[in-house]
């Protein structure tokens, strides 16, 4: 197989990505190849560049070096294959608009310039809201939503984009347990439909349950692979440094079936 043909098999391919803020590297020489149809968690300590990785991939911030391919094409040409869920805190939820309106924003790119969303867009948005379980809130003002409902709104907006690859920045941050489960179900549904979902995640405890692939990041990429291969004690220590050394005894590969171990990691991760 030629190099070119091979690269097309990856839903996302990042080569030698370097991003610098004021000449301090936020990401250094990062490589990441994600096959189609997986749920990938990006984990790492604060300041590891997790959000930066997504933003650089989506051309939202300038890259110092490196290339990005989505299904073999640069982002500019693959935009309609990509859905995006930004961090919930990145917008002002007191903006005068409704849940349905925000959801329809996911269709603006398809509607094109100068045109307004119509009946068809409204229906698409409604069915996305049904999917995330908040269709009854469609006409509600967004400032009246709970955190979980805000997150579902953002998710619905990404769903109407009908993308192949989804990027989600901390979708589980500060949502209630019911919402968290609802989101997980949607992620799994997306995977069943052959979509690829890349999620910035902060809770090491749930990585095993929610995801099948994991990328451990701390400015440099420490490890990428299936959760079974990459989510090891050794790699976690490399990612979180001495801060995780406290758990000591269980060095080397950890028992994959044990959730107790990962719970311990989570505590250490939270303590960081």
């Amino acid at each position, binding site marked *: 197989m030629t190099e070119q043909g091979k690269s097309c098999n990856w839903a996302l391919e990042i080569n030698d990505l370097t991003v610098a803020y004021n000449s301090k590297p936020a990401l250094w020489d990062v490589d990441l190849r994600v096959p189609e149809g997986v749920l990938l968690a990006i984990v790492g300590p604060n300041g590891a560049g997790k959000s930066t990785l997504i*933003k650089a991939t*989506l*051309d*939202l911030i300038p890259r110092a070096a490196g290339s990005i391919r989505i299904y073999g094409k640069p982002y*500019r040409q693959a*935009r309609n294959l*990509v859905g*995006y869920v*930004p961090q919930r805190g*990145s*917008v*002002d939820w007191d*903006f*005068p*608009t*409704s849940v349905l309106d*925000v959801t329809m*924003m996911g269709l*603006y*790119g398809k*509607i094109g*310039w*100068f045109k*307004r*969303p119509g009946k068809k867009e409204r229906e698409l948005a409604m069915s996305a809201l049904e999917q995330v379980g908040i269709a*009854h*809130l469609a*006409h*509600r*003002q967004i*400032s*009246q939503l709970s955190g*979980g409902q805000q997150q579902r709104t953002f998710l619905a*907006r990404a769903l109407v984009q009908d993308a192949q690859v989804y*990027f989600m920045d901390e979708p589980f941050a500060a949502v*209630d*347990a*019911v*919402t968290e489960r609802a989101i997980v179900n949607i992620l799994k549904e997306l995977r069943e439909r052959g979509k690829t979902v890349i999620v910035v995640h902060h809770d090491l405890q749930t990585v095993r349950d929610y995801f099948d692939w994991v990328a451990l990041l701390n400015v440099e990429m420490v490890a990428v692979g299936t959760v079974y291969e990459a989510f090891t004690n050794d790699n976690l220590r490399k990612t979180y440094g001495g801060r995780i050394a406290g758990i000591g005894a269980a060095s080397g590969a950890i028992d994959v079936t044990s959730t107790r171990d990962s719970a311990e990691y989570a505590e250490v991760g939270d303590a960081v």
Partner: protein
Amino acid sequence: MQYKSHHVWWVIAIMALIFLIFIPLSIALGVRYDYTLTTVAVGGALLGAISGMLGTFTVLRKESLMGDALSHAALPGIAIAFLIAGRQLGWLLVGAGIAGWIGAQGIRAITNTTRIKQDAAMGIVLTTFFALGLTFLSFIQQLPDASQAGLDQFIFGQAAAIVRRDVELIIIVGTFALLGILFFWKEFKLITFDREFAGANGYPVQLLDLLLGTLIVVAIVLGLQLAGVILMVGMLIAPAVAARQWTHHLGQMTILSMMFGAFSGASGAVISGIDTGLPTGPIIITVAFTLVFISLLFAPERGLLWTWWRQLQDKRRFAAINVLIDIYRHACQHDDPHYPAPEGYLRALRGPIAKTGLYYLHKAGLIRSVGKDKWALTDSGEAAAIHEDRNRLLWALYRQHSEALSLPSIREEREIDIRHCLPEDAVSQLEVLANELTDKQNLES
């Protein structure tokens, strides 16, 4: 609360009515709408509407201070344009626009290249440009040329200076601004709400920023001779701030903001047009902030009076419910649902709020006075108490088990009765749990 709120149309209708009344009223008060005054009034209304329209976006983008910096930065541009071209409005505005634009770029450059934050950068640019402008003005005033008079009108604004040709210019530029907003409505909305998402969707965010920013600069520059460089920011943001109180819909907010702006602009222009000694800017701002004040107080949902009233209602409602259950439980201990509870006991239990609760329960016919300072449940009071007691138990069970039973999340924040919050099958699930619990308790006792 539905977001297509209809009361907004009432506010808009009332504003239109005030407009209609304003003209005959002012005539009755002795204002004569001669040619000059009509021109000034129309000019003021149009400028107010344009500022109101673009002020909506300025406020939502949290760039109010940027607007202030821009208008101050325009002053040296006006002075330099005067030195070059003389007192011609078109050139003065071009000068103002260029200086304002340079000021904005200066702020951006300082913020991007140094560690100085945006507020400090604005402060630096605003004061520097304003000082520069004042220096130029005092220099111009020493020139022998007689036509220099009136340039300092740009500091506080002077509507009387508006002539027919200015109104034509305002109409042309205003039409362009309106078309710009209409054409790029959904794009402007998107970059204002969520820039990152817009960027990820391939919208040229910087270009749209530049376009919207240019429209805002145009609105500011046009408004300068009406409101003056110092107070222009008030004319830009006050109508939008007032409008935001009344609606949750961007379109409605923009229309309302335009009406508020038009009203402030027109009334300010007319009042100062009658007595040319009065500077226009302060009058416009006084009118505009009266509207803001009224809106902050009286707007439904967001208004202070509304909030205060709702808190009072909640206080009374919960006082009544709590005291009702107190009386009921007290009665149950005596195995007689109509057994009276002494007021002193209820007060000891609940504090002085018990008095409030008793008052409203009595008013609703749920309790009756028996003997001195003793209260007993009426039949309807007993039914209500049983209902409330059960409701509280169901809530407790919901909080405890909703996840295990995967019950839907509750959405009516201000609804107390759980039976109105959940679908029937969910309620019956909780009822089963409640019955099990009470059966167990009965068995134990």
